[in-house]
């Protein structure tokens, strides 16, 4: 499967991403989805250079709370230390490498390595070494704490790690994505959102970049999600585009470039929002409550900002592998490349901490109507991505994916155009070519 590469960003001097503004063409070589060499190269050029989503502050409420997970291929402990500070430490004993915390989550006073019994405090410092007196004088216990990821920073409770010590600061990195995170966070009266318990972890037998595309590509909705559209129609929701509008969907949304490879859709809502737009799926009894949620937004933020939050859907892709879908519910979806043709997806639901039981139940119900491995839509996305991946076995004969949709339009780029997908690819290509 792997051929020899000559140029850092291309194959035999040919580019992997090809754009012509004169000919209005944009194409991506399918080799980027199948090549082991490109996969290894992007681990270094993309995942070791960018800020990678690590977790949310609400997952670590109390001192000692921790989650173990994999960030950019490394096992880490995402932990709130006894001192209240959030850290992200490499989950590998400094002695001989064993995983020092083998549980998914919990509350710890220390981390105990089961191999030789070294013990670490929740701030990572080495606390105990059995038979310490047999170590030579040169053994420096204070320098043998758990390693920390080189950089850890948060924006509005979303924590990101970077393995690049020289990375720009997180807020600079997030660029225009910050304003779209704000639109999510402002849904809470106290601006505190929380990860809701229950995590969806599943594999997709496809390249991770396909899920970036899929998460923000509204062009696929009508074909891929025909059964979901049918379900919404059966529930009394109008899913038809206005006559003569030329649209594929009921409203005209936009695709936007947020800088640094981040992008979003920005669509007038037609499919309901827990905060705060009622549709018939929620039931008549929910109408007044959703009205009250909207009224709180208006009182706190004013009419215009309240409408901005309540009446638009936004699928936000933060480069490279975090998606926050603020649609029928809010989902935080993170995906890790495992092989050229395999990714691991982790998805959570996010909601305002103030929600009542009824509001929370409604949010979760709305989530499962569309999202997740048992939802009415996500399984068909998975089928589409796996189908594309299977098609790429013919990458030598049919080398190029077309992403030219919307090019040459004079007006704004819509959510069913592909300019926002091109934003991702340009940044990916730039990072791949920058790595000599």
């Amino acid at each position, binding site marked *: 499967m792997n051929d020899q590469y000559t140029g850092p960003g291309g194959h035999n001097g040919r580019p992997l991403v090809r754009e012509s503004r004169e000919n209005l063409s944009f194409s991506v070589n399918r080799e980027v989805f199948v090549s082991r060499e490109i996969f290894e190269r992007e681990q270094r050029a993309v995942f070791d250079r960018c800020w990678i989503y690590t977790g949310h502050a609400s997952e670590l409420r109390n001192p000692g709370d921790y989650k173990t997970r994999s960030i950019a291929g490394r096992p880490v402990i995402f932990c709130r230390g006894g001192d209240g500070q959030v850290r992200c430490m490499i989950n590998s004993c400094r002695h001989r490498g064993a995983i020092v915390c083998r549980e998914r989550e919990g509350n710890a006073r220390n981390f105990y390595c089961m191999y030789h019994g070294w013990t670490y405090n929740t701030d990572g410092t080495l606390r105990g070494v059995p038979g310490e007196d047999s170590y030579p004088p040169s053994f420096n216990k204070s320098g043998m704490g758990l390693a920390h990821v080189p950089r850890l920073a948060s924006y509005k409770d979303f924590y990101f790690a970077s393995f690049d010590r020289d990375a720009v600061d997180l807020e600079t990195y997030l660029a225009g994505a910050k304003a779209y995170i704000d639109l999510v966070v402002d849904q809470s009266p106290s601006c505190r959102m929380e990860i809701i318990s229950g995590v969806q972890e599943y594999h997709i037998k496809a390249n991770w970049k396909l899920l970036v595309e899929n998460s923000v590509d509204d062009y696929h909705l009508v074909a891929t999600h*025909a059964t979901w559209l049918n379900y919404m129609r059966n529930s009394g929701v109008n899913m038809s585009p206005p006559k003569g509008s030329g649209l594929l969907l009921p409203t005209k949304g936009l695709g936007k470039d947020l800088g640094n490879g981040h992008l979003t859709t920005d669509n007038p809502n037609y499919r309901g929002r827990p905060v705060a737009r009622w549709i018939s799926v929620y039931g008549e009894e929910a109408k007044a409550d959703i009205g009250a949620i909207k009224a709180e937004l208006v009182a706190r933020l004013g009419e215009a900002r309240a409408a901005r939050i309540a009446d638009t859907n936004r699928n936000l892709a933060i480069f490279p592998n975090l998606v926050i879908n603020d649609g029928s519910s809010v989902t935080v979806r993170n995906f890790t490349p495992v092989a050229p043709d395999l990714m691991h997806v982790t998805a959570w639901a996010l909601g305002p901490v103030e929600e009542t039981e009824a509001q929370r139940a409604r949010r979760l119900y709305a989530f499962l109507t569309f999202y*997740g491995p*048992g939802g009415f839509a996500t399984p068909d996305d*998975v089928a589409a991505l796996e189908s594309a991946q299977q098609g790429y076995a013919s990458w030598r004969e049919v080398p190029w994916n077309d992403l030219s949709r919307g090019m040459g339009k004079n007006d704004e780029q819509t959510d069913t155009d592909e300019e926002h997908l091109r934003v991702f690819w340009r940044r990916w290509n730039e990072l791949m070519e920058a790595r000599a």
Partner: protein
Amino acid sequence: MNKPLDEVATVSRVEIEDFLFREADLLDNWRLDEWLTLLTDDAAYYVPPNDKPDADHRFTLFTIADDIVRLRERVIRLKDPNCHAEYPPSRTRRLITNVRITGVDGDTIAIAANFAVYRYRRGELAREFVGHYRHKLRRVGGVLKIAERRAILDAHELGAMGAVSFIL
């Protein structure tokens, strides 16, 4: 709510087994409209998340938490050729064992059973879904029906199972 098993006068394990085996046969043969007739008009269907198998769907994100309205819509979806995840339909085979009556409360019978469901699609290795059922059955006009259907997976994550796009 569970009463001692010696009060279980109106149902036998054999009857429950026959019921579950018939249900499995309908599902494995994609006779989904007939399968719906096994459910009460207020039935619910749950697949809890792998990390919180004992959780309540009102507070925790499940894999599936359908009321009867959405469950009927799920069947409409599964019968539609545009249900791409299940078109062509998977071949499934479910093995159901260790059937027990765990309690009776009025007309509601709580039952438990283990399951292994093998799912086959063309060109793919088999995907195995292993776990246990915790159902609540109810007699409606003398006929056993499912009022609550809970399929709890043993795996720590869905992982290579991928999606739960068929009725588990």
